[in-house]
């Protein structure tokens, strides 16, 4: 095995061009290899010392998050918690404190697990990833990035350098909730993120919802545009739950049956929209929603 440590972006891109796979925190790549999921790649380049990928840059266009920003940073960063709260909700649920200290957003995104926690928030925010190779760089929306379990549309020589989130209109709120059987070292049984913008009278201006662990990739819930103009009330929440449950294509596995997942993803979607709307109205619900609103997930 060939292992190199890159300290600059160029060194990393050169290594990638020569066939190396990047490792950031290693909490997917190394842990997965130890568990026998897939062996370590023949050639690995460590990117965790590339300083330029560790920053969060807030601007009028939105927020740029360096690929190496960790879950621990995301769950406590004032901009993320304030404007992109669903992402903070998600990062705060990842593994344990030590997982959050080593695990990066770039790693979570590029690992492309259908159960990844930051995926649904990034999708509802319309995030784009910046992919760079020696040949140049391009931006891809996350919906086009994830092509299947563990698969992305990125080329082998492309490094994810940053994740860009568009700016948020006034009156917006967001939330991510997941179904979990224990409160640490857990993986989402199902999850849902919601991003909502409300008019001054409380009517829905826009709403997007995305679902975790109910399809080969994170999926967006279609049809939420038809809810515009309505108030966020029990009827709307019931409609959201029905949309989510009907569009989910879950599998049965050790963690849950298909039937139970389908039911619960509706519950999660409803709770995510409810919490997002409350936040949009200015109510403070501490990160993560799972903890501040009760058992397992919001009540």
């Amino acid at each position, binding site marked *: 095995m060939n292992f190199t440590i890159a300290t600059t972006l160029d060194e990393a891109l050169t290594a990638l061009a020569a066939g190396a796979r990047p490792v950031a925190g290693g909490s997917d790549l190394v842990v997965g290899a130890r*568990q026998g999921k897939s062996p370590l790649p023949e050639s690995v380049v460590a990117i965790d010392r590339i300083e330029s990928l560790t920053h969060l840059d807030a601007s009028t266009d939105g927020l740029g998050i360096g690929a190496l920003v960790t879950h621990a940073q995301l769950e406590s960063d004032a901009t993320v918690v304030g404007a992109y709260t669903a992402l903070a909700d998600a990062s705060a649920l990842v593994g*344990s404190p030590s997982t959050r200290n080593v695990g990066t957003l770039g790693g979570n995104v590029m690992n492309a697990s259908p159960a990844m926690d930051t995926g649904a928030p990034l999708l509802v925010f319309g995030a784009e990833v910046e992919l760079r190779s020696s040949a140049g760089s391009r931006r891809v929306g996350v919906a086009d990035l994830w092509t299947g379990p563990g698969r992305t549309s990125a080329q082998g020589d492309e490094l994810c350098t940053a994740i860009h989130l568009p700016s948020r209109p006034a009156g917006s709120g967001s939330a991510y909730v997941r*179904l*979990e*059987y*224990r*409160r*640490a*070292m*857990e*993986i989402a049984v199902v999850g849902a993120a919601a991003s909502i913008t409300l008019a001054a009278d409380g009517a829905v201006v826009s709403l997007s919802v995305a679902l975790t662990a109910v399809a080969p990739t994170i999926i967006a819930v279609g049809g939420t545009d038809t809810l515009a103009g309505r108030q966020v009330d029990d009827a709307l929440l019931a409609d959201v739950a029905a949309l989510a449950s009907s569009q989910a294509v879950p599998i049965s596995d*050790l*963690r*849950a*049956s298909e039937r*139970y997942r389908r*039911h*619960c993803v509706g*519950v999660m979607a409803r709770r995510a929209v409810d919490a997002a709307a409350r936040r949009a109205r200015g109510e403070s619900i501490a990160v993560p929603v799972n903890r501040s609103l*009760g*058992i*397992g*997930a919001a*009540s």
Partner: protein
Amino acid sequence: MTAATKPRFIRADGPDKVTGSGRYTADLTLTGMLAAKFRYADIAHARITKLDVSAARAIPGVMAVLTADDVPDVRFGPFVQDRTLFARDVVRFEGEVIAAVAATTAAIAQRAVDAIVVEFEPLPLVTDLEIGLTADAPLVHADWASYGAAGALVRDRNDASFSSISKGDVDAGLAEADHVITSRYVADGSHAAPIEPRAVVAQWEGNKVTIWTSTQVPFDARAGVCETLELPANRVRIIVPHLGGGFGGKCGFHYEAHIAALAKAAKRPVRLVFSRREEFLAPDRRREGMVIDVTTGVRNDGTITARKAWIAIDNGAYTADSGFFPQLAAMHVSGPYRIPNLYVEAHLVYTNHQPSGSVRAPTAPQSCWAIESHTDEVAAALAMDPVDFRRLNAVDTGVEGPSGQTYGEIGVQQCIEEATKLVGYGRTLPDDEAIGVAIGWWPSFAVPSGAYIKIDGDGSGQIITGAQECGTGSVMTLRQLAADELGMLPEDFQLVYQDTSVAPYDMGATGSQTIFNNGRAVIAAAGQIAEQLKALAAEHLEASPADIVLADGHAHVAGTPSSSVSITELAGIASGGELLIAHGSGTPPSAPPLLGSSCVGDVGMAAFVAPQFSCHAVRLRLDRDTGVVRILEVGAAHDSGTIINETGALGQIQGGVMMGIGQALTEGTLYDDESRQRNPALLEYKLQTCADSPVINTHFVQIATPNAGPHGAKGLAEAPNVATAAAISNALAKLLGRPVRRLPMTAERVWETMSEVDPS
């Protein structure tokens, strides 16, 4: 010292473990040491039609490959001699060892394992307990009748051990009842899941072998090596470095002989280190799955007239120490209640699952869960408060229990009062919260045990004990017992332990027995030293030995504290004459009599020596949309006799409760259609984490138990694991309107129960 000035208990092994300077078995390295790997069956029931290790032997770096042909042809097992070190002809569960390899690196050993050629002819699987007991079920052991077995066991085909308790006339008792309630409960198997996967290192010198191993029972491990490799006890030395937890999973004899045989064949030291996956799949120690059918008759006034029960216990493919499980389960399904007419029968059923063995309070959490859930169903049928029902029907001091034992001073009623008080039972709660209550019991185990004590010339002491520390702190507490006897401080003693060639016999970290039995041995040895010190002091102080008091590191004449000599000085005197060396064992308490009952398959479990009682009250919250349960608060009241080390005792309660919560909600083994475990990994086999822990408040009911251990102590390590799942079930049933009849009561099963759809 008064309680207020007594320093908090500090574990002697604590600093080593916390700083990392302590050594565990997997940390050991010996010159020339080889790595061991096993070839497992990986098929649950099959005849071996071909086994060829020649390609494996030919790989460079492979120093030994062993199969059944390379070790003595010995069948072993503590209750039924139904197994061999390596599979012979037939494999009966996926984790059965077919061959073992020792090679210069673990990678080479693994390659050799993969190069072993094995061919099978599949045999029909036995996985269902009820089907396994039918007359035409396939046999897990075709030759069962020819196996040697403990005389008391009643065996028949797949029924490896049958036991019953019978008292009064159960049919007449049920006929007398105003209400008859019948329930069925089914518990999945679960795991001990110690944090340290097991490891074994073996090294021969001449015809003697030293084996370092992560066992809870070094003397049992030695006995297993001696039996299977045909060696006398004095040529086998078992040493246990620090043990990374056990919870029963490391009781019994496991892989010590395999590794010793490999080391002998390779003429090099050999080390085995298990992966987490192997720890889940291979050892004959997981908590048994059970099916429990129970019928109880009650009068309108709330008194029980009769109970009838049928129990099937998953033995797995081989009989480890599970031979006594049927009788123990029968006791737990009877429960600590006044039952005039009783008939309980229990079957230990061979299946093609991993073998079951003692995991913390074997059979008790599942049985208690079933019977205490049933008890709440009975109380509900009477429209009676379930706690009042227990006050009325639970046993008490001087009362006859279900098996015909009349109890001396016991504290079950006090436990009910205290546990319910701790959580405020009866108060108004939000409508998604409820409190459930359950009572449980557990025997103390009276067995032989030994220890030596010596005091060297500088006044420092050593306790050389056969007892095994598995993390509970029991062995650590022995220092306190010796110190109290001798007027010294716990820190004045070093412990020498976990070495079978150095210390006398002890049963090991099993059966909550360390303080109960080894405490007795240490106190007896300390008593001999005390006699010696008093004689020396009497001479020195010109007084009678009977008037000498040992306190605060000194010997003084009673009533004349100024006439004193330090123990250090006495030790110095002794080092020039008769040395301060003592040994202790003491006589174990005797088993209480049983009257008016009869037991089939009696292995001595129907009478409980110094029985321990407990009551757990749990407040929880239910997420009605998803079935997710969160435990908010646990009140645990325990009658475990005198509490000798409160810090350690509280740790046992808290750990037992957490383990109980896991068993209740998230821990359970799932099998595929070919009888392979589907979740042998910590992500999918969900233990509770610190983040899940509720507030746990404990009350110890300390009463003077007759026939108990040192200073009136009973056992304590297993009792806290008995009643938690049951109390959780009863809280849940209040919220759901009916119990969840499958253990673990996973979120999905709770949701299924809510949706009135039968769980799959």
